[in-house]
Protein backbone atom coordinates (compact mmCIF):
# COMPACT_ATOMS: atom_id res chain seq x y z
CA UNK A 1 0.00 0.00 0.00
CA UNK A 2 1.32 3.47 -0.88
CA UNK A 3 1.94 6.00 1.90
CA UNK A 4 -0.46 8.34 0.07
CA UNK A 5 -3.29 5.97 0.97
CA UNK A 6 -3.14 7.47 4.46
CA UNK A 7 -3.97 10.89 2.99
CA UNK A 8 -7.53 9.56 3.06
CA UNK A 9 -8.96 11.03 6.32
CA UNK A 10 -11.07 7.95 7.18
CA UNK A 11 -8.13 5.58 6.66
CA UNK A 12 -5.82 7.88 8.63
CA UNK A 13 -8.31 8.04 11.52
CA UNK A 14 -8.57 4.23 11.64
CA UNK A 15 -4.77 3.92 11.58
CA UNK A 16 -4.44 6.40 14.46
CA UNK A 17 -6.98 4.52 16.57
CA UNK A 18 -4.95 1.34 16.11
CA UNK A 19 -1.42 2.64 16.77
CA UNK A 20 -1.95 5.55 19.19
CA UNK A 21 -2.10 3.45 22.41
CA UNK A 22 1.17 1.72 21.46
CA UNK A 23 2.98 4.95 20.62
CA UNK A 24 1.70 6.65 23.80
CA UNK A 25 2.71 3.61 25.90
CA UNK A 26 6.21 3.55 24.36
CA UNK A 27 6.53 7.31 25.00
CA UNK A 28 5.58 6.88 28.68
CA UNK A 29 8.04 4.00 29.05
CA UNK A 30 10.99 5.84 27.44
CA UNK A 31 10.24 9.07 29.32
CA UNK A 32 9.95 7.16 32.61
CA UNK A 33 13.24 5.33 32.09
CA UNK A 34 15.15 8.37 30.79
CA UNK A 35 13.95 10.88 33.37
CA UNK A 36 14.08 8.59 36.43
CA UNK A 37 17.51 7.24 35.42
CA UNK A 38 18.81 10.73 34.70
CA UNK A 39 17.32 12.43 37.75
CA UNK A 40 17.98 9.81 40.44
CA UNK A 41 20.79 7.59 39.21
CA UNK A 42 23.38 9.82 37.53
CA UNK A 43 26.13 11.75 39.34
CA UNK A 44 26.52 15.53 39.43
CA UNK A 45 28.81 17.13 36.86
CA UNK A 46 32.17 18.26 38.27
CA UNK A 47 31.61 21.83 37.05
CA UNK A 48 27.83 22.22 36.76
CA UNK A 49 26.83 20.27 39.87
CA UNK A 50 23.25 18.98 39.94
CA UNK A 51 22.11 21.49 37.28
CA UNK A 52 23.31 18.94 34.71
CA UNK A 53 20.05 17.07 35.39
CA UNK A 54 18.25 19.82 33.45
CA UNK A 55 19.86 18.35 30.30
CA UNK A 56 17.27 15.51 30.28
CA UNK A 57 14.44 17.97 29.60
CA UNK A 58 16.20 20.92 27.97
CA UNK A 59 17.95 19.04 25.14
CA UNK A 60 14.96 16.83 24.15
CA UNK A 61 12.61 19.86 24.23
CA UNK A 62 14.99 21.88 22.02
CA UNK A 63 15.34 18.88 19.67
CA UNK A 64 11.56 18.66 19.27
CA UNK A 65 11.20 22.46 18.97
CA UNK A 66 13.35 22.47 15.83
CA UNK A 67 12.20 19.17 14.33
CA UNK A 68 8.49 19.90 14.86
CA UNK A 69 8.95 22.88 12.54
CA UNK A 70 10.80 20.64 10.07
CA UNK A 71 7.87 18.20 10.15
CA UNK A 72 5.47 21.14 9.57
CA UNK A 73 7.71 22.22 6.65
CA UNK A 74 7.40 18.79 5.01
CA UNK A 75 3.62 18.68 5.63
CA UNK A 76 3.25 22.21 4.22
CA UNK A 77 5.14 21.23 1.08
CA UNK A 78 2.89 18.17 0.65
CA UNK A 79 -0.16 20.41 1.05
CA UNK A 80 1.10 22.98 -1.47
CA UNK A 81 2.10 20.34 -4.04
CA UNK A 82 -0.43 17.53 -3.61
CA UNK A 83 -3.32 19.29 -1.78
CA UNK A 84 -3.84 16.50 0.78
CA UNK A 85 -5.95 17.93 3.61
CA UNK A 86 -4.52 15.52 6.19
CA UNK A 87 -1.04 16.98 5.67
CA UNK A 88 -2.28 20.55 6.25
CA UNK A 89 -4.15 19.43 9.37
CA UNK A 90 -1.09 17.51 10.64
CA UNK A 91 0.99 20.70 10.31
CA UNK A 92 -1.70 22.62 12.19
CA UNK A 93 -1.81 19.92 14.89
CA UNK A 94 1.98 19.99 15.37
CA UNK A 95 2.29 23.77 15.84
CA UNK A 96 1.08 24.04 19.47
CA UNK A 97 3.31 21.09 20.42
CA UNK A 98 6.31 22.79 18.82
CA UNK A 99 5.43 26.08 20.54
CA UNK A 100 5.22 24.42 23.97
CA UNK A 101 8.52 22.58 23.41
CA UNK A 102 10.21 25.82 22.31
CA UNK A 103 8.88 27.54 25.44
CA UNK A 104 10.12 24.64 27.60
CA UNK A 105 13.56 24.90 25.96
CA UNK A 106 13.66 28.67 26.53
CA UNK A 107 12.49 28.51 30.16
CA UNK A 108 14.63 25.55 31.22
CA UNK A 109 17.57 27.20 29.44
CA UNK A 110 16.99 30.41 31.41
CA UNK A 111 16.72 28.47 34.68
CA UNK A 112 19.93 26.59 33.82
CA UNK A 113 21.69 29.76 32.67
CA UNK A 114 21.18 31.72 35.89
CA UNK A 115 23.43 29.57 38.14
CA UNK A 116 25.91 28.69 35.35
CA UNK A 117 26.25 31.93 33.36
CA UNK A 118 25.04 34.34 36.04
CA UNK A 119 22.15 35.55 33.87
CA UNK A 120 18.64 34.39 32.95
CA UNK A 121 18.94 35.72 29.41
CA UNK A 122 21.58 36.82 26.94
CA UNK A 123 21.10 37.98 23.34
CA UNK A 124 23.18 35.03 22.23
CA UNK A 125 22.70 33.67 18.66
CA UNK A 126 21.23 30.32 19.81
CA UNK A 127 18.90 31.90 22.40
CA UNK A 128 17.77 34.71 20.10
CA UNK A 129 17.05 32.40 17.17
CA UNK A 130 14.99 30.18 19.50
CA UNK A 131 13.01 33.20 20.68
CA UNK A 132 12.32 34.14 17.03
CA UNK A 133 11.28 30.53 16.34
CA UNK A 134 8.82 30.76 19.25
CA UNK A 135 7.35 33.96 17.80
CA UNK A 136 6.98 32.18 14.43
CA UNK A 137 5.09 29.36 16.15
CA UNK A 138 2.71 31.89 17.74
CA UNK A 139 2.25 33.67 14.42
CA UNK A 140 1.54 30.37 12.64
CA UNK A 141 -1.10 29.37 15.24
CA UNK A 142 -2.66 32.85 15.13
CA UNK A 143 -2.84 32.77 11.31
CA UNK A 144 -4.76 29.47 11.35
CA UNK A 145 -7.21 31.05 13.84
CA UNK A 146 -7.55 34.29 11.91
CA UNK A 147 -8.60 32.91 8.51
CA UNK A 148 -12.11 31.40 8.27
CA UNK A 149 -11.79 29.56 4.97
CA UNK A 150 -9.79 26.35 5.78
CA UNK A 151 -8.00 25.96 2.42
CA UNK A 152 -6.94 29.61 2.35
CA UNK A 153 -5.70 29.27 5.95
CA UNK A 154 -3.74 26.15 4.95
CA UNK A 155 -2.18 28.00 1.97
CA UNK A 156 -1.17 31.06 4.01
CA UNK A 157 0.18 29.08 6.96
CA UNK A 158 2.13 26.79 4.61
CA UNK A 159 3.88 29.83 3.11
CA UNK A 160 4.58 31.23 6.59
CA UNK A 161 6.01 27.83 7.53
CA UNK A 162 8.39 27.85 4.56
CA UNK A 163 9.63 31.32 5.55
CA UNK A 164 9.98 30.34 9.22
CA UNK A 165 12.08 27.32 8.27
CA UNK A 166 15.04 29.68 7.87
CA UNK A 167 14.84 30.43 11.61
CA UNK A 168 14.38 26.77 12.52
CA UNK A 169 17.62 26.08 10.62
CA UNK A 170 19.32 29.07 12.26
CA UNK A 171 18.24 27.77 15.70
CA UNK A 172 19.97 24.49 14.94
CA UNK A 173 23.19 25.92 13.52
CA UNK A 174 23.42 29.35 15.22
CA UNK A 175 26.32 28.32 17.43
CA UNK A 176 28.31 27.05 14.43
CA UNK A 177 27.42 29.94 12.11
CA UNK A 178 28.27 32.80 14.48
CA UNK A 179 30.76 30.90 16.64
CA UNK A 180 30.14 33.21 19.59
CA UNK A 181 27.83 33.66 22.57
CA UNK A 182 27.38 31.83 25.85
CA UNK A 183 25.60 28.73 24.56
CA UNK A 184 27.71 25.63 24.05
CA UNK A 185 27.72 23.54 20.86
CA UNK A 186 25.67 20.40 20.32
CA UNK A 187 25.30 18.10 23.35
CA UNK A 188 25.06 15.06 21.10
CA UNK A 189 27.75 14.58 18.53
CA UNK A 190 29.43 11.77 16.61
CA UNK A 191 32.69 13.35 17.79
CA UNK A 192 33.45 11.61 21.13
CA UNK A 193 35.34 14.68 22.36
CA UNK A 194 32.32 16.97 21.95
CA UNK A 195 29.69 14.51 23.15
CA UNK A 196 28.44 14.52 26.73
CA UNK A 197 29.99 11.86 28.99
CA UNK A 198 28.58 8.33 28.65
CA UNK A 199 27.05 8.44 32.13
CA UNK A 200 24.76 11.30 30.99
CA UNK A 201 24.50 10.18 27.36
CA UNK A 202 22.57 6.93 27.86
CA UNK A 203 19.65 8.30 29.92
CA UNK A 204 19.61 11.34 27.62
CA UNK A 205 19.01 9.06 24.62
CA UNK A 206 16.03 7.51 26.41
CA UNK A 207 14.67 10.96 27.27
CA UNK A 208 15.02 12.11 23.65
CA UNK A 209 13.31 8.93 22.40
CA UNK A 210 10.52 9.57 24.93
CA UNK A 211 10.04 13.16 23.74
CA UNK A 212 10.04 12.06 20.09
CA UNK A 213 7.44 9.35 20.76
CA UNK A 214 5.36 11.80 22.82
CA UNK A 215 5.50 14.26 19.92
CA UNK A 216 4.36 11.56 17.46
CA UNK A 217 1.54 10.47 19.80
CA UNK A 218 0.34 14.06 20.26
CA UNK A 219 0.52 14.80 16.52
CA UNK A 220 -1.54 11.67 15.75
CA UNK A 221 -4.10 12.51 18.44
CA UNK A 222 -4.40 16.17 17.48
CA UNK A 223 -4.51 15.47 13.72
CA UNK A 224 -7.36 13.01 14.27
CA UNK A 225 -9.12 15.71 16.31
CA UNK A 226 -8.61 18.26 13.50
CA UNK A 227 -10.02 15.80 10.94
CA UNK A 228 -13.08 15.21 13.11
CA UNK A 229 -13.50 18.95 13.79
CA UNK A 230 -13.35 19.61 10.05
CA UNK A 231 -16.03 16.98 9.37
CA UNK A 232 -18.17 18.38 12.21
CA UNK A 233 -17.89 21.86 10.74
CA UNK A 234 -18.84 20.60 7.28
CA UNK A 235 -21.89 18.75 8.63
CA UNK A 236 -23.06 21.76 10.61
CA UNK A 237 -22.64 24.08 7.63
CA UNK A 238 -24.66 21.62 5.51
CA UNK A 239 -27.44 21.66 8.13
CA UNK A 240 -27.51 25.45 8.19
CA UNK A 241 -27.66 25.55 4.39
Amino acid at each position, binding site marked *: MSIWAFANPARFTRLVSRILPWVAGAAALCLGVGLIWGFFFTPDDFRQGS*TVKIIYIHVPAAFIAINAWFMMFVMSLIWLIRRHHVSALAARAAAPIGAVMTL*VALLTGAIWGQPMWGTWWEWDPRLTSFLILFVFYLGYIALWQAVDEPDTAADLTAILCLVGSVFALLSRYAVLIWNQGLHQGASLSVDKEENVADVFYQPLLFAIAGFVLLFIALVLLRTRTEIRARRLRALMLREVA
Partner: protein
Amino acid sequence: MLGQYAPFVLAAYGVTILLVGGLVVSSVIRSAKVRAALEKVERTRG
Protein backbone atom coordinates in the same frame (compact mmCIF):
# COMPACT_ATOMS: atom_id res chain seq x y z
CA MET B 1 20.75 15.17 46.81
CA LEU B 2 20.52 18.25 44.56
CA GLY B 3 22.53 20.52 46.86
CA GLN B 4 22.64 24.29 46.41
CA TYR B 5 21.11 24.09 42.91
CA ALA B 6 17.95 22.28 44.05
CA PRO B 7 15.61 25.27 43.43
CA PHE B 8 16.84 25.60 39.83
CA VAL B 9 16.62 21.89 39.00
CA LEU B 10 13.19 21.50 40.61
CA ALA B 11 11.90 24.68 38.94
CA ALA B 12 13.04 23.40 35.51
CA TYR B 13 11.29 20.06 36.01
CA GLY B 14 8.21 21.77 37.48
CA VAL B 15 7.82 24.14 34.53
CA THR B 16 8.23 21.24 32.08
CA ILE B 17 5.69 19.00 33.83
CA LEU B 18 3.23 21.91 33.98
CA LEU B 19 3.57 22.88 30.30
CA VAL B 20 3.85 19.41 28.74
CA GLY B 21 1.23 17.97 31.12
CA GLY B 22 -1.11 20.84 30.25
CA LEU B 23 -0.57 20.19 26.54
CA VAL B 24 -1.35 16.47 26.90
CA VAL B 25 -4.44 17.05 29.06
CA SER B 26 -5.84 19.81 26.81
CA SER B 27 -5.24 17.64 23.71
CA VAL B 28 -7.08 14.67 25.24
CA ILE B 29 -9.99 16.82 26.48
CA ARG B 30 -10.44 18.54 23.09
CA SER B 31 -10.26 15.18 21.33
CA ALA B 32 -13.02 13.77 23.55
CA LYS B 33 -15.20 16.89 23.13
CA VAL B 34 -14.91 16.97 19.32
CA ARG B 35 -15.55 13.22 19.08
CA ALA B 36 -18.68 13.50 21.25
CA ALA B 37 -19.98 16.48 19.26
CA LEU B 38 -19.38 14.70 15.94
CA GLU B 39 -21.12 11.52 17.13
CA LYS B 40 -24.09 13.60 18.30
CA VAL B 41 -24.44 15.35 14.93
CA GLU B 42 -24.02 12.07 13.01
CA ARG B 43 -26.69 10.40 15.20
CA THR B 44 -29.22 13.19 14.65
CA ARG B 45 -28.61 13.00 10.91
CA GLY B 46 -29.26 9.24 11.00
